[in-house]
């Protein structure tokens, strides 16, 4: 029995370590779903995940280094939209603005399919009192201040997360 209070609700402890658009979704989806189930949730934002605490989210996505990423066109007939565009890395790495294009395509495809935006999911998490904890060490390294983040963000270190996670039923590193 690791839980110090057996009457406490279930708890989810997440580490969010990546700040790209594709990796921004999993922590906020899981956190909001757990909140909807009445669980206590805390997300520890570290390294590149820390950027997800900024008021304006600028998360982008790169097909570079994501060779299995399906590139879909969010417009045109359905058959055209379902085509999986195979983009060689050599082409992508040499084409200026390709990341911007890929990010726009992914955002539009998600919108067309009915997926909430990262901002909307983060707002849901805030409404559900999900604890959003920024990693102090990463802030020091990358030169962030608490003022750079949304006011709901707390600041903590490894011990803060570990103490929270020790009492959690589910712990995930994303």
């Amino acid at each position, binding site marked *: 029995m690791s839980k110090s209070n057996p009457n406490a609700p*279930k708890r989810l402890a997440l580490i969010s370590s990546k700040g790209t658009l594709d990796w921004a979704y999993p922590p906020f*989806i899981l956190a*909001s*779903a757990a*909140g*909807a*189930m*009445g*669980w206590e949730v805390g997300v520890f934002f570290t390294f590149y995940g820390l950027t997800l605490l900024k008021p304006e989210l600028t998360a982008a996505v790169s097909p570079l280094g994501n060779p299995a990423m399906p590139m879909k066109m969010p417009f045109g007939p359905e058959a055209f939209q379902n085509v999986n565009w195979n983009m060689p890395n050599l082409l992508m790495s040499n084409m200026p603005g390709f990341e911007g294009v890929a990010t726009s395509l992914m955002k539009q495809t998600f919108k067309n*399919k*009915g*997926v*909430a935006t990262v901002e909307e*999911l983060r707002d*849901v998490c805030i409404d559900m009192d999900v604890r959003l904890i920024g990693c102090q060490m990463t802030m020091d390294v990358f030169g962030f201040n608490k003022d750079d983040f949304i006011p709901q963000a707390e600041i903590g270190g490894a011990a803060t997360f570990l103490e929270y996670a020790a009492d959690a039923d589910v712990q995930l590193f994303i």
Partner: protein
Amino acid sequence: MEAFEVIKEDRLLDCSDMLCPMPIVNTAKAMKELQPGQVLKMISTDAGSPPDIEAWSRQTGNELLLSTVEGGKFVFFLKKA
């Protein structure tokens, strides 16, 4: 007579065209506003909803009275605990 025709909902929530996790997020929000014993009818087009609503019901203790398909959409009747 179909079973869902005899269950009367106190509130209707349409989550058509939403994807995970919004159907359960909105279900949880709507359920908060109901009184114990009242029934929420939730409609979804997300194929992940049937297993998700079952899990949500088990986790929250709100009883899933019926999970069915009506007019090509998933329909759930949930009773507030």
